[in-house]
C-alpha cells in the first residue's frame, strides 16, 4: 500500500513537472530549429534565429527601452516604497492602517484596469503615450510591492541606531541615506530586482500606454502576428533567460539576509 502510494506520488510529481516545463522546453528547443517552422521534427541546432533577433532593429531598440523603463520605474518604486515604509513604521501616524491600505491597493486590481484608467486619464489631460507613461504605469504596480517588502523588514532594533545617528548630529536625510537605507539594503535590493522583473515582463500596461517607442513584450506581441516562427522563439528565450537571471539575483539577496 505505502509502496503503491509512493510510486503514485512520484509518478504524479513527474507528470506535473513535465506539464510545467513542456512549453518552456519546446520554446527554447525550437529556437535552435534549423528550419522555417518551430515544430517537430527538430532539425539543427543553429544559432541563426538569435542572429536574426540581434539584427532586428526594432527588437534591439525594444530591448533597450525595456531595460530603461524597468530600471527607472523600479528606482522610483523603491524610493517611494522605502520612504513610505519608513514613515509608517516609525511615525505612529493617525490613520496609518488606512494609508497602508491605500498604498497597497494597486496590488488588488488587475493590470488591465490600471492601464486603462491611466490611458483614459492621460487621454483626458492631453498627455501623449510614451516610454515615460509606461514607466509611470509600472511604478504604480511596483510601488506597493517595494513598500510591502521594506515595511516587513523595518525592525524596532533599527530605531535606536537611527536615534544614535541623530544624537551624533546627523541630519534627517543623512540618517535615511547613510544609516536606514544601508540597514535595509537586502530588502531594497529584493524589491528592486522583483520590480525590474515585473516591469520587464509586463505587457498590457506597456501596450496601452505606449505608441511609437515600445518595450520588448509589446514588440514580441507584434511578432506573433506572423504566426509560428523560430525567431519569436529566440526572442522569447532571451526574455525568459533574463527574467530567470533577475529572479535568481533577488533570491540570493534574500537568502543572504537570512544567514
Amino acid at each position: 500500500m505505502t509502496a503503491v502510494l509512493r510510486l503514485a506520488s512520484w509518478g504524479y510529481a513527474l507528470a506535473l513537472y513535465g506539464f510545467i516545463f513542456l512549453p518552456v522546453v519546446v520554446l527554447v528547443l525550437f529556437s535552435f530549429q534549423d528550419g522555417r517552422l518551430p515544430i517537430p521534427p527538430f532539425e539543427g541546432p543553429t544559432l541563426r534565429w538569435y542572429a536574426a533577433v540581434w539584427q532586428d532593429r526594432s527588437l534591439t531598440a525594444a530591448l533597450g527601452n525595456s531595460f530603461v523603463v524597468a530600471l527607472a520605474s523600479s528606482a522610483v518604486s523603491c524610493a517611494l516604497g522605502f520612504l513610505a515604509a519608513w514613515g509608517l513604521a516609525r511615525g505612529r501616524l493617525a490613520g496609518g492602517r488606512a494609508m497602508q491600505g491605500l498604498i497597497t491597493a494597486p496590488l488588488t486590481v488587475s493590470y488591465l484596469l490600471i492601464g486603462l484608467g491611466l490611458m483614459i486619464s492621460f487621454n483626458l489631460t492631453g498627455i501623449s503615450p510614451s516610454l515615460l507613461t509606461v514607466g509611470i504605469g509600472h511604478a504604480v504596480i511596483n510601488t506597493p510591492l517595494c513598500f510591502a517588502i521594506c515595511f516587513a523588514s523595518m525592525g524596532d532594533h533599527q530605531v535606536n541606531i537611527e536615534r544614535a545617528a541623530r544624537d551624533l548630529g546627523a541630519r534627517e536625510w543623512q540618517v535615511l541615506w547613510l544609516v536606514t537605507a544601508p540597514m535595509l539594503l537586502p530588502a531594497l535590493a529584493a524589491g528592486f530586482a522583483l520590480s525590474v522583473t515585473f516591469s520587464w515582463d509586463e505587457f498590457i500596461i506597456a501596450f496601452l500606454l505606449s505608441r511609437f517607442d515600445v518595450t520588448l513584450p509589446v514588440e514580441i506581441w507584434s511578432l506573433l502576428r506572423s504566426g509560428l516562427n523560430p525567431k519569436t522563439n529566440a526572442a522569447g528565450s532571451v526574455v525568459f533567460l533574463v527574467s530567470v537571471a533577475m529572479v535568481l539575483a533577488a533570491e540570493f539577496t534574500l537568502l543572504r539576509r537570512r544567514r
Partner: protein
Amino acid sequence: MTTPERAERRRAWAAVAPALLWTLAFFVVPFAMMAAMSLWQRQGREVVRVWDLSNYQDFLSKPHLLGALWNSIEITVLVTVISVVLAYPLAWIIAERVPRHLQRLALALAVLPFWTSYVVRSYAWTLVLAKNGVLNQALIGAGLIAEPLEISATRGATVTGFVHFFVMLLTLTIYANLVQLPANYRRAAADLGAGPLAVFWHVTLPLTLPGIMVGAFLTFVLCIGDYITPQILGGNSELVLPQVIMLQLGRGADLPMAAALSIVLMTVVTAAWLACARWLRLERA
C-alpha cells in the same frame, strides 16, 4: 505633545507623502476618471459628457457583451477548480515526500516557468497545441490518435494556458500553508486511531483551507482580468470580458463603453473578494 515627538511626526508625514500623492495621482484619480468616463457616451468620434447609465444598459441588453462576462466567469471558475485540484497533490508531495533540504529546490523548479512573460508563455503553448505541434505529433506517433486534435483557438487551449500558470502559483501558496502545519496535530489524530485518509480529510485539509482560499482568490482575480492568454490561445472563438474591453479601443474607439465594462469587471472581482474576505485577512508579524 512634546516638541521632538511633533518633529518626528512631521518627518514621518514627509516620508509617507510622496507615495500617497503618487497613489492618489496615478491610481485613485485615474479610477475616478474611468468611472466618470463610463457614464459618458460616444457619439461619432467624440466623447459627449452627458451623464447617464446607457453604457451599462447596453451591457445588460447586448448578448455578446453579457455573454463575454459569462464566458469569463465560466472559464475562471473552471481554471480555478482544475488548478487547485492539480496543485494540491504536488504541493503535498513537495512538503511531505521530498527531503527537507531539497524542498526549496523542488519548489523553485516547480515555479521556474512562472517567470516567463505571459506573452511568451502563451506563444509557447500555441507551439505545443498547434495542429501539427508537439502534442499532436507525439499522440499520433504513440498511435493514440489518427487525426490531429483541433485544440488551438478553442476554450480548451485557453484553459490549458491558464491552468499551467496557476498550478505554479497555487503550488507555492498551498506549500507555504502545508509546511506551517505542526506535525503534532496529525500525530495526535493518528494516535487517536485515525487512518491516513481520515487524518488528511479531517485535519490536514481543513487546516490548509485558508491557503487554498488565498490562492484560489488570486487565481480568480488574475485569471478574470487577463487579456493575453485568451487572446493568443483562445483566438476569437469565444470572447471573454477583457477581450471585449480591448475591442472597444480598436477602430472607432469607444472609451466610455470600455470604461463601463472595466467597472463591471471590477465589480465582479470585488464580489469575489467579499465572498472570500474572511479567509483573506492579511497577518503581519
